[in-house]
Structures are given as structure tokens and as C-alpha cells.
């Protein structure tokens, strides 16, 4: 049972939590610095634009991740490698 443990699933699960966490942490730190230490209106406007972009890009990323066919990922890369080998062999 231990030897059949799906490490790719664990790896994906860790990445799915770690990457968004780091992303939002970094984004928060940028917005915090702009709002707290920025003088004048420019830093606030930049923070607003940044936040908008962060939300849009995160949504885009989630959609791309959900649409990813993870089950056939390895086989697709193998097929790509085989096709490349066949092309080289035929030459």
C-alpha cells in the first residue's frame, strides 16, 4: 500500500496550496507597502491597478489549472518524446 502511494497527487496538492499562498502573500506585501508608506495619490492608484491585475491573473490561472488534464499528462509527454524520436530516426 505504501509503495502504491501516489506521489504525483501529493506533489500537486502541495503546489496547489503553496503557490497561491506565496502569490497572495507577495501581493499583500506589495499592497501593504504602497498604501502604508506611499506618499501622495500615485502609490494608491498603483496599488489599485495592481490588485485588479492580481485578481484577474489569479482567476485566469485557476481556470487554466482546472482545465489541465492531469491524468494523461505523463502519457502526452511520453508520446511527444516518441514522436520526436521517430522523426529523428526517420531522418
Amino acid at each position, binding site marked *: 500500500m505504501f509503495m502504491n502511494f501516489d506521489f504525483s497527487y501529493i506533489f500537486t496538492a502541495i503546489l496547489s496550496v503553496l503557490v497561491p499562498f506565496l502569490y497572495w502573500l507577495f501581493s499583500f506585501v506589495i499592497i501593504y507597502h*504602497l498604501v502604508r508608506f506611499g506618499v501622495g495619490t500615485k502609490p494608491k492608484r498603483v496599488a489599485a491597478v495592481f490588485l485588479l491585475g492580481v485578481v484577474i491573473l489569479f482567476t485566469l490561472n485557476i481556470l487554466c489549472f482546472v482545465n489541465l488534464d492531469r491524468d494523461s499528462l505523463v502519457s502526452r509527454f511520453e508520446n511527444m518524446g516518441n514522436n520526436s524520436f521517430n522523426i529523428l530516426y526517420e531522418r
Partner: protein
Amino acid sequence: MKSLFSIFFDTKNSFEGEEDDERVILLIRRHPFFIILHLIFFTILFFVPIFLGLMFSNFLIVSGLSDVFFLLSSLWFILTWLLTFYSLTMYLLDVWIVTNKRIIDSTQHGFFNRKVSELHLKRIQDMSVEIKGVIQTLFTFGDLRVQTAGTEEKFKFLQIPFPLEAKDKIMGLITKENHF
């Protein structure tokens, strides 16, 4: 609602440590030329996945890896967006504030690493402006150095726009301060 959005349009340029009878006369940042160079670089980086996608579109469709490419591209966009705004943040937080009483130099050296220096107008002895090179002359930016009577390091305004005008304004404030 009006007061919520007013932070984007109206400002008294207030800052941390401002005194009650203090007014901000000048708020100076480095010339935009430097941040524009960074923004151009990051814009080019941003378009790299689009360029690669167009170049290898046939290969991606045939090999069935377009969903992987879209995911990697979205991660690239996120990374570029974060780096762009990190650069912008460092540019915006490097600021010189000239008030009716003192000059404040606030420099950001990365996250959670800030250096703030101040110099009272009464201690200023002399000032010098340096505009060196073709680009600085064309875009009218340069260095303004402020010297006190002591052996302390000069207060430096580096690569600021219209340094001569800034110098004249500060001289005017010093004259006014000395009269009182």
C-alpha cells in the same frame, strides 16, 4: 463613496512623522525615465509566451500540450506582474519630501527595509546641482546635493527631475526660515 475614492485624487501628501504646523512644499521622486526602462523590459517579458505560442502553435496542437502551455503562460504572466509592481513599488517609495521646516529622504531597500533621514532647513549651508551627459540634459534630470556645516555626508537627491528648480525652491525656503 466620494471620500472613499478621494484618496486616488486628493492629497495633502501627508507622511509618517509629520508635525502639526508642517506643510509639504515639494514631493520629489527619481525621474520617470528609469522606471520606464524597467517597464519596457517587463512588457517585453510579458509578451514572451504569446510570441512562443504563435511560433509553436502547430506543435502544441498536434502534441496535445496546449493546456499545459496555457497554464505555464498564466504562471509566467503572474510572475511578470509581480516583478513589475515590485519594481514600481521600490520606485514610488524612494521619495524626498521638502517641507517648510526640513528635508526628508525616505529610501526603500527591498521589503521591510527602509531608511529615513532628515535635515532641518536651518542647517543647510550650500547646495550644488549636477546634470551630466546627453540623456540627463535632454530629459532635464540630475543630482542635487545639500551640504551642512558639519563633516556629515551630503544629503543627496539623485536623478531628480528639474533639479535647478528644486534647488531654487529650497533656497527660497531657507531664506524665509532664516528671516524668522
